[in-house]
């Protein structure tokens, strides 16, 4: 299966050595994308977290014990598992930039895409969004809220891409060649340690272009062949090894890469 290619490829490189697990990215994401707090959020398998920070451990006793945190947005896969399975074309990867879309008014809520995604990046709206009194005044005006019964996921704050393009148009620039930093998702912008670098992976003028090629860079579950547009990097070997199963288990398996 061949990954879908575009002239622009929006992507992230997340430096796991810089991530402190503070969760600011998760909060910024919730605010930017109008994700309502659940009345009862005790069941974490039901909460909506387009951006979710996982904790990783090297499973060693003290004093060698180490912890790392891995922020997980939607991987915007080049060869997405979720897109071809949707029975009603409610999700697609057909826009320049390679962001996997989610069309809420089209989604029937069958959750086939959720079953397909190995990163658990897709979330179901178990209830209608109810914003606590006063909070509705702080909603993002450009992001639609979603009704109960549809699937949603990170879209790299797509409205920010539209806004960035509009701004460049107003200034007489080329909206298809945004400068580095002109478009940045909320998580990337808010990260206090600068762990999340965002940009066009194909544009040499963008930082992510080089970072993604770093010898410490890797992608999650690369052997599955989904070609994520989100890269991670860490100087720590045990962290890199947790990026894929063959590395984590020390069983490399057959060399044959799945076609």
């Amino acid at each position: 299966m061949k990954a879908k290619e575009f002239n622009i490829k929006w992507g992230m490189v997340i430096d796991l050595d810089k991530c402190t697990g503070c969760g600011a990215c998760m909060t910024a994401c919730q605010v930017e994308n109008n994700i309502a707090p659940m009345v009862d959020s005790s069941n974490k398998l039901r909460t909506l977290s387009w951006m979710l920070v996982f904790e990783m451990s090297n499973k060693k006793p003290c004093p060698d014990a180490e912890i790392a945190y891995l922020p997980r947005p939607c991987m915007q896969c080049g060869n997405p598992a979720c897109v071809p399975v949707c029975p009603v074309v409610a999700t697609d990867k057909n826009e320049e930039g390679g962001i996997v879309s989610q069309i809420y008014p089209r989604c029937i809520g069958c959750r086939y895409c959720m079953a397909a995604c190995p990163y658990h990046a897709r979330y179901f709206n178990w209830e209608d969004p109810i914003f606590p009194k006063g909070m509705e005044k702080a909603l993002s005006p450009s992001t639609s809220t979603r009704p109960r019964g549809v699937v949603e996921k990170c879209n790299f704050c797509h409205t920010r891409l539209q806004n960035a393009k509009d701004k460049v148009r107003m200034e007489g620039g080329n909206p298809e060649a945004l400068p580095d930093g002109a478009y940045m998702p909320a998580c990337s912008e808010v990260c206090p340690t600068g762990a999340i670098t965002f940009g066009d992976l194909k544009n040499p003028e963008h930082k992510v272009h080089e970072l993604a090629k770093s010898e410490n860079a890797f992608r999650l579950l690369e052997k599955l062949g989904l070609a994520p547009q989100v890269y991670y990097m860490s100087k720590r070997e045990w962290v890199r090894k947790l990026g894929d199963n063959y590395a984590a288990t020390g069983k490399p398996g057959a060399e044959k890469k799945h076609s």
Partner: protein
Amino acid sequence: MDRALFPEGLERCSFGKFALWMGFITAFFLFGLYAMLLIFAKGIVVTGLDNYFGFGLWITFDLAVIALGAGAFFTGFLKYILKIDQLKNIINLTVIVGFICYSGAMLVLTMDIGQPIRAWFGYWHPNVHSMLTEVIFCITCYCLVLVIEFVPLVLEQKQLNKIPFLHHLAHNMHVNMALFAGIGAFLSTFHQGSLGGMYGVLIGRPYAFREGFFIWPWTFFLFVLSAVGCGPIFTVLCCTFMEKLTGRKLVDFKTKALMGKIAGTMLTVYIFFKILDTWAWANNYLPSVGMTFDQMFYGVIYGKWLMFTEIILCGVVPAIMLITPSIRNNPTLLYTAGILDCIGITLNRYLFTVQAIAIPLMPFDNWQFYAPNWAEWATSGMIVAYGFLVMSLSYRYLPVFPQEKMLNK
């Protein structure tokens, strides 16, 4: 009281007894109906599903009943296309069982989707690349075919059949039934396959993903074979269960054994390819994506015993039992083999539905557990109760079993 409605020359229990039975079943049905209305009102938040387990009991139930209901299309194919005449003794029952299974599955699906009011989007905005689209189209069309196959049986009800128009309509529908049997076989083969294809295309789920032929993963073919390997014997089990309930002989054992032979033959073919497929998956595909066989299982509820039970105890064993004439011709052993067979196929559907999505693929993620809650059980029970109601009414008032009079002289 309702004697005039009974099939010609047949005895049925008293109306009071029948009403009591129907009342008992209706209680289960109403409990499920309450759960269903609650789900439509409040959404599937009332179920035990979550973001890790988007598929659960309902999808397992759907896939299982659709496989078990495969007796309808396959027996129809053998009776009307391949002209195996002996199957006329049980063909009506296969149609009713198939109708119940498919209509029930469709009802569950409308509950299962988050936006039931958008259910028609599947036809209006179809994604031709999605196996689920094919399933939506074929299941609906095939359910209509089953209605067409069921209608003549209803029209043959003693009083209805006295109306000349309905009598002729039923007769003419019977004459052309081979056409519908053919359409049914085509539609059913494709959606049974597409249900398997739904899992086989999941590139992000190594438990389910399979390579295959052209656009069809191997699971496509395995699901077709497994469905025809259990559908016929499930009809036999339904028939025998009805015989035990009513205390009357309904189908001769020779026909049942023939159904067992048909199911056994298909199950043997299936299990041969299933073992090959599992071997290739464990030794070739899994290592190619950096995973091991052991990583696919965990503890007791996700243990390897499930797969071995599915393939050996409820696959190889019933296959051998059903293709061995001396075992097949013993009623107790035939039914035992049938029960094992049906459990095995149901377990297969469960594993592809729940185990496949339970496996934590990111090495730092954990196994999560899913337990269906009362709302899922109640609504699934409602479909079973619905099946009992349709079957009870059909048995009491329709000429379902052509041999019944002769067998109970």
